[in-house]
C-alpha cells in the first residue's frame, strides 16, 4: 500500500548494534484500526543494561498481532511488560507508559492485580497447576472468591469450548491436569487465560514446546479466537506469524524496526532488513 521506497541505509543493523536509535517504520494501515493497547516511548532496563528502546506501537483491538525478531531482541520482555510480569524481577526499571483501553498501566495508583485480571497470559511451556482440570480453568475465578458452583461450571465449560478442549476432557474434569498431553495442557492454559474474559490475550511463544500436530491445533484455535479477543503473540516461527496474525511487528536489539499488516511485512516491507529477516537472511 505505502509504496514509497526509502533509500535504505545498508548498515542500519550495524549502527543499531553500536547503539544508534531509529524511528520505527510503521505502516499507515495500523492507524486505521481501533487500538486496545497503546505503548508509548517505552524503555526498560535490567539493572544497567537497557533492553527496550523507545518502543511505541498501538495494538489493534480484536486482531492478532505477532511480535517477531531474532532471539534476545526483547519480544518476550515487551510482552511481559504489558501485564507487568517484570515487576517480579527486582532489578527492572522502566520508562514511558502503556495504556490498556486508555487506562494507564504504569501509573502510580494502578492496582497490578486488577490489571492482570484484564489480560490473559499463556507461556512458552504449558504450566497447568497440579490440580484437577476443572480447578485449573476456574482458578482466576477462585482467586476472585467466586464460590457459586453453577457459575464456575458454566465458565469452565465456556472456556474449555473456547479453547476447543471441551469435547476431549468433558468426562474427566476432576482428573489431574497433569494427565493431559502437552498440546492439551497448552490449550488448557489458554482456557484458563480466557476464563476471566480478558481484554487482551498475551501469548508468549505458545507453540515452541509442542509437536506439529499440537501446534496446528493451537494455531486453529488462535484463528477461531480472532475477532473475539485482542491477541498479542510472540513467535519465532515466521510461517506461523504469517499464517495466523493480522499485524506483525519486527524487533531487533530492543528496537521496533518495522510494524505493519502481516501481508505487507512479508511481501513488500519498507525496510530491506525486514525483507532479509523474513526471508531468513539474518537472525
Amino acid at each position: 500500500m505505502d509504496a514509497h521506497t526509502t533509500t535504505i541505509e545498508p548498515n542500519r543493523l550495524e549502527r543499531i548494534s553500536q547503539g544508534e536509535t531509529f524511528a520505527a517504520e510503521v505502516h499507515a494501515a495500523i492507524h486505521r484500526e481501533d487500538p486496545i493497547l497503546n505503548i508509548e516511548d517505552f524503555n526498560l532496563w535490567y539493572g544497567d543494561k537497557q533492553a527496550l528502546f523507545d518502543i511505541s506501537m498501538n495494538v489493534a483491538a480484536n486482531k492478532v498481532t505477532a511480535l517477531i525478531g531474532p532471539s534476545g531482541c526483547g519480544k518476550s520482555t515487551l510482552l511481559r511488560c504489558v501485564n507487568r510480569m517484570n515487576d517480579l524481577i527486582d532489578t527492572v526499571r522502566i520508562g514511558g507508559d502503556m495504556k490498556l483501553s486508555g487506562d494507564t498501566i504504569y501509573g502510580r495508583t494502578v492496582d497490578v492485580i486488577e490489571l492482570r485480571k484484564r489480560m490473559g497470559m499463556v507461556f512458552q511451556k504449558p504450566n497447568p497447576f497440579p490440580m484437577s482440570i476443572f480447578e485449573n480453568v476456574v482458578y482466576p475465578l477462585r482467586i476472585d472468591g467466586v464460590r457459586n458452583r453453577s457459575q464456575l461450571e458454566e465458565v469452565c465449560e465456556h472456556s474449555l469450548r473456547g479453547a476447543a478442549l471441551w469435547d476431549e476432557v468433558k468426562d474427566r474434569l476432576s482428573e489431574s491436569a497433569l494427565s493431559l498431553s502437552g498440546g492439551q495442557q497448552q490449550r488448557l492454559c489458554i482456557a484458563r487465560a480466557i476464563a476471566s474474559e480478558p481484554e487482551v490475550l498475551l501469548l508468549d511463544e505458545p507453540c515452541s514446546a509442542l509437536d506439529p500436530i499440537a501446534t496446528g491445533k493451537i494455531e486453529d484455535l488462535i484463528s477461531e479466537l480472532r475477532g473475539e479477543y485482542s491477541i498479542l503473540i510472540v513467535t519465532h516461527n515466521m510461517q506461523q506469524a504469517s499464517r495466523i496474525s493480522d499485524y506483525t511487528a519486527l524487533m531487533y536489539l530492543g528496537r521496533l524496526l518495522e510494524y505493519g499488516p502481516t501481508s505487507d511485512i512479508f511481501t513488500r516491507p519498507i525496510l530491506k532488513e525486514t525483507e532479509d529477516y523474513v526471508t531468513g537472511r539474518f537472525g
Partner: protein
Amino acid sequence: MTMAESLESRTSATAAAPRQKRRHGKSSYGTSILAGGEAMVWFTGGSLVVSLVMVIGLLVLVLYLGLSTFKVLPVVRIETSDGRVLMGEVSQTETFSLSANTILRESPAAAANMIRQLAESAGDLTEIPRQIQDHAAELESQKKNSQKKLDLARTEFHKQLTQLQGKLHSPADRQTWIAANGQSQHLRQLQDNVDALTSQVEGLEAEIENQQNAAQQWSQLIQATSPLDVLLDVNADYSVRTAGVDALIRLAAAATDDDHVQASRQLIRTGNFDLTNQHFDWVTDFQIRENGVSYPEDAVVLERVAWGRFYGRPKAFVQLAPRNADQLERAIQAELELVSSHQHLVAEKDLAAVEELKTQLEQLAQQARSQTNATYLDMVRTEQNALNAPLVYAVAADGSEQPLAETSPDEDVTSCRFVWDSADAAWQQFESHHAAVRERFQEAQHLRKHALGHEYEKQERSRLKLRQAEIDQDLQILPRIKVHAEASAQRQYAADQLASVQNTLSQLKKRFAENSKWTAALDRWAEKIVSQSQSQLDQAQQQLDQATNPIEALPENIQSLVQHHWDVMSEAEEQTDVINQKIALLDAQNSIYQLQMVTADDQTVSIALGDVVRGYQANQLDATDKRAVYWSRWWEFLTDEPREANSEGGVLPAIWGTVIMTLIMSVAVVPFGVLAALYLREYAKSGPVVSVIRIAINNLAGVPSIVFGVFGLGFFCYIIGAFIDGGAKNAGFTPLPSGRWYLTLGALALLSTGAFLTGVFSMTGRPSERNLLKRILAPVSFVLWALALAALISVLMFNPYFHGFYEAQLPNPQWGKGGVLWAALTLSLMTLPVVIVATEEALAAVPNSMREGSYGCGASKWQTIRRIVLPHALPGIMTGMILAMARGAGEVAPLMLVGAVKLAPELPIDGAWPFVHGDRSFMHLGFHIFDLGFQSQNSDAAKPMVYTTTLLLIAIIAALNILAISLRAYLRKRFESRQF
C-alpha cells in the same frame, strides 16, 4: 570386603596409568578396569552393603534381645556340694579358665569334686613333682629375662647419674641448670623403672624358691601317700597344695592339647530378694553335686509388686475367717471399759457397790462371748463343708492354734483358719482366688492414687484461693484458720466423748435398773463422770470461741471465702472418709487369703495374694500356656505403670510421655519453621543478611542437643516459667517503678505506631519509583520496629502489676520447673533448622512457571503462595516434619534438664481439666532406657528390659513416621487432584 575392594581399585588405578599411555600409541580400547567402571560399581555397592548390614544387624539384635526378654524359662533347682540349694532361672552362661586359686577358694567339697574331675583327665599323677619343677625352670628363664632388662636399666641409670653429677660439679650457668633439671626428671623415671624391675625379679625369685620347695616336698609326699590324697588334704600346706593343683591343671590341659582348662558357670536368677538380699547368684559347674540339677514339677514363679520375683514351691493356702463380736458383746465391752477407766471418780462409800457391779458386768460379758462363739463356730463348720477345706484351726487371743474339732465355745477364739496343706491343693486355691483378689487390690490402688489425690487436690485448690486472698489483701488468714480448725476439732472430739459417755451410762443404768441397791451409787458416779466430760467440752468450746473471734474480724467477702473453704474442706474430708472406708473394706477382703510358700532352702514365707502380679508353675506349662504368659507380660509392659525402680512392670507413662511430647513438639515446630522458610524464600530479597541467616540456621542444626537443654532450662523454666508463676520478681527481674513503667508503655505505643506508619509509607509504590525519603524511611521503620520490640519486652518483663498466675503456691513452682511443654518447646527449637531447611528446599523446588502462571491469572502474592506454592511444597514440608519428629522423639540429653524424670506420678494427659498438662514432668522412653541401663540397682534384671524398651522406642518412632508419611500421602492426593 570394602578393604579388599578399595585395595583392588587402588592397585588397578596405579596399574591403569602406564596402560593409558600405551593406549595413545596403539589406539586400542578398554583395558583399564577403572575406565570400565567395574571397580567403582563394586566399591560403591560394597559400601552400601556394609551400611545395610550394620542397620539390619542393629534391628535384628534389638528385635532378638527385645523379644526374648519376656520368654518363659524353666525353673531349675541346683544343689551344690557344699549344701547350698538354689532355685531359679538360668539367665546367663559363661566360661572361664581354671586356676588353683579359683578351685581352692571354693568350699572343700566343691574343690574336691573339681580336683577329682581334673585328676581323671590328667592321667599319671606322679608326674606332678616333675611338672612343678618344669614350671620352676620356666620361671627361671623368665627371671633371667627380667634380670637382663634390670641390668640394662641399671647401667643406663648410672650413666645418666654420672653425667648429671659431672654437670653439677662444673661451674653452672643458667642453661646447664635447666638442662640438669630436665635430666633429673628423666633420671627419676629411670629409677622407677629399675625399682619395678627389681621387685619383679625378687617376686620371681620367691616364686621359684616356692615352687622348688613344693616340688621337693611333693616328691617326698608321694612316696608315702597317693598324689590324689595329697591334693585333697585340706590340712596340707597351702602353697604346696596350690602348686600341686596348678600342676594338675597343666597336666589336664596338656592331656587335651590345650593351654587352659575351661570351666563354665551360670548366673541363676534366684529372686527372693527379701530373704537373700540378692536377685542373682553365680554357680560354677564343679560346685554342683552329682545329680544336683532338677526341674521340680511344683516349682512356682511369683512376680510380686515389691521385692521382685519369688521362686519356691507352694506349701499351704490359708483362708481366714475372722470373728466379729455381736452388738450385745460390744455394748457390754464398752460399759466394762467405761467402768474400769473411771474408777477413780467413785466416791468412797460407793466403792463396794461399784466393785460388785463390775463383777456382775464381767459375768455378763463372758456369757455374751460364749454365745457369740457358739454361733461363730457353727458358721465356721458350715463354711468348712462349703469350702471343702481339709483343715481348720481356731486361733486364740494369744496366737496359739488348735484344731476346730477340739475347740469349745467357752474358749477365747479370735479367728479361724482354713488350711489347704498340700502343694497341689494350695496352688489350686491360689489360682481360683488370685484374679478376684488382684482386681480388688488394683481397685484399692486406684482409689488410693486417684480418688484420694483428687480430694487432696480440691482441698489444696481451696487453700490456695485463700492464700491468694491473703496476698492480695495483705491479711493473716491461713494461720487463723489453722488455729480455728484445731480448736474446732478439739471441741468436736469433746462433744463426741460426752455423747458416748452419756450413751454408755444410760445403757448401764438400764441394764441394772431392777437392781435398786446400785442405782443410787451409779447415779452419783455417773453425775461425776458426766460433769468431768462436760467441763472438758466447755473448755474446748471456750477455745473455739477465742479462735472464732479473729475470723469474725475479717472483712465480709473474706469471711464468705473462708466459709466456702470450710465447706470444701468438710466435704472433701467426708469424701476421703468414704474412700478410706472403701479401701479398708477391699483390704480386709483381701487380707483373709494367704499363700504359704517354701523356698529352695526350706524357709517358709507367707505371701499376700494382692502382692502377686502373676504366678505360674514354670515347669508344667505347655507351649500355649507359655505363650499366654509371654503375651500377658507384653500386655503388662505396654499398659501398666512401672514398679521395682522401673525394672519391672510397664512403661505406659513413658509411652504417653514420648508420644505427647513429640506431638506437641511437631505442632510447635512446623508453623514456625514453615513461616520462617516462607519469608526467607518468598519474601526476603537475597543479600548478605539472608545468607548469614541461612548459614546460622544450618549451624543451629549442628549445635549439641544438651546445649538446647541448658537453654531450655535457663529460658523456658527459669525465666518464662518463673514469670508465669510469680511475675517479674520471681523470674529474677526488678520491676520498674510504676511511673517509669507507664512511660515505657507510652513509648511502646508511640514506637509501634511510628514503625507501622513509616513501614507502610516506605513500602508503597514500585521499588524503582521510591524516592530518597522512602529509601531513608525503610531502615528507620526497621529500627523503630526493633525499638518497639525492646519496649514490648521491657513492658512485659518489668511489669510491676503482674504477680504471676500461681503466686499463692510459691515457692513451689508450677511452671518454673521442667515440664512436658518446656521439653517440647526446647526440642522444637532444636529441630527448627531441620524444618526450615526442608521447607526451603521444597519451596525452591516449586517451578517458577507455576508462580508466573498464577500471577498471570491475576493472583496476588499470598494467593499464589497459598494456592499454588504451599500445596506443591507440602510433601517436602511433611518430609521436614518427619525428620524433625524422628530426631526429637529419640532425643534424651536435653530432656534430662527440662522435665523428663525417672518416675512421673501423673500422665501429662488425663481426664482432668485442661486435659493436657504442660507443666507436669513426664517419663520418656529414651530417658527410661538410660535409667534402666545405668541407674538401676538391679542391673542384671534391668538389662533385658533395656533392649525391650529400645525395641518399643524404635517401634513408636516408626509408628509416628508411618503416621506422618500416610498423612503426607493423603495431603498430596488431596492437593493434587481436588475432586469435582
